[in-house]
């Protein structure tokens, strides 16, 4: 099928970006969206032009490195699907597709569709862990975790850190990302000991990094490739309020 593309090109953080139009005449419906971009890049390279820079790695929806706005929707038209899992069968012959990078103040553009999401690492570094050194761990079955607790913790832990929640949020809030880690660890007995410190530290870091706040529009969960629940955000608020009331 024929696909018209309008792709965001930007040389670096300091220059202005613009939309560039391309047309691909032989797109296969079974291609993945990124394979379609591959074919564009091959074409551009052969014409002596600079290929479009975009982030991707595992291409099976788990590493979280890919992610662009497709027709104004984070990761494209399918709900709970990462960009790499999107296939061209979701589009029609002759469609025009807008491709833009994830935009937020905390996500400066590196080039074209590549953005700097290191803020997410910074949030984890602020406290997204259980402070246990290698070698300190007790026998695994000495910490019992009920099936429900473990499954629920997993649901939060499944976050792939792609940043779609931030890109899709009208406030560019990192609440879903941050809360998923906070509530995963708060749900587990081994994580509860330092929950207050963790929550306050992570929330403060999120603020320092210029992410916005949450107004519960719930858009993030819809576009999240892992369908991370917005109730994690409520739990983060709970943990935060508890910590502040206790201190």
């Amino acid at each position, binding site marked *: 099928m024929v696909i018209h593309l*309008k792709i*965001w090109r930007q040389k670096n953080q300091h220059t202005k970006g613009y*939309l560039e139009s391309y047309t691909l005449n032989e797109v296969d419906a079974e291609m993945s969206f990124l394979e379609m971009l591959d074919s564009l890049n091959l074409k551009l390279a052969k014409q002596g032009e600079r290929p479009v820079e975009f982030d991707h790695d595992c291409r099976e929806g788990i590493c979280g490195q890919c992610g662009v*706005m497709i*027709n*104004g*929707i*984070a990761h494209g038209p399918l*709900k709970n699907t990462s960009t790499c899992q999107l296939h061209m069968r979701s589009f029609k012959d002759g469609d025009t597709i*807008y491709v*833009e990078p994830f*935009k*937020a*103040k*905390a*996500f400066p553009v590196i080039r074209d569709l590549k953005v700097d999401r290191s803020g997410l690492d910074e949030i984890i570094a602020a406290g997204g862990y259980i402070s246990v050194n290698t070698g300190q761990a007790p026998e695994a079955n000495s910490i019992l975790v009920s099936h429900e607790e473990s499954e629920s913790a997993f649901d939060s832990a499944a976050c792939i850190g792609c940043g779609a929640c931030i890109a*899709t949020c*009208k*406030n*560019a*809030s990192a609440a879903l990302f941050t809360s998923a880690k906070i*509530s995963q660890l708060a749900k587990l007995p081994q994580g509860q000991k330092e929950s207050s410190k963790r929550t306050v530290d992570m*929330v*403060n870091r999120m*603020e320092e990094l*210029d*992410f*916005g*706040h*949450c*107004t*519960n*529009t*719930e*858009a*993030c969960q*819809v*576009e999240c490739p892992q369908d991370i*629940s*917005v*109730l*994690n*955000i*409520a*739990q*983060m*608020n*709970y*943990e*935060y*309020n*508890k910590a*502040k009331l206790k201190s």
Partner: protein
Amino acid sequence: MWFIKNSITRKNLMALTGLFLCLFLVIHLLGNFQLLLPKEEARLQYNLYSDFLSNNILVKLISYGLYASILIHTLDSIYLTIKAKKAKGSSYVKDNRGRASKWYSRQMMFLGSIVFAFLVIHFKDFWFVYKFGTLPLDTNGNKDLYGLVLVSFENLWYVLLYGFAILSLGFHLLHGFFSAFRTIGLYNPKYNSIIKTVGIVFAIAITFGYFIIPFYMYLID
């Protein structure tokens, strides 16, 4: 100064003031239901009720809380909106993000602004006149607020203005009610679905309740 800058704290304040205002909405509505009584009975009872409200010390204290709540709710919303605008960076050329959320959840500031503008008119037309203006007295010797209400709602455009404002309030509540509970940390899935339902019922009930009064007043006159 964490308590000023931290957005979860600011959101908490918004939620708590919002919920307090919800409570006020209920009480205000219940009081205003007296307007629906037969005309002369309503006049006496409503004026008596208004007189009681304006002279009771407890009600006075609560009303200060009310003014403070409106102020904090408004100021916080302005602060957070500015902050969100900064966080957002540049905008998308093609933006279909709206498909993932309800329009009114994204337009809380807009809806809130309409409600605020309405409040100003509402205060000026009733509260201010009642407090500082001169009103005739009814047969019991109370200021005849009922009469003022009756006259005000003679105008259709005024009734429609009220209808529009109340509809905005309704959508504001439709999102705001459950959102407030989320913000203060209600994360249990079961209770959340209860709150969501309660919130919808509440928003509809309040909208409907406030809706019928101006129309009723317009029709009986």
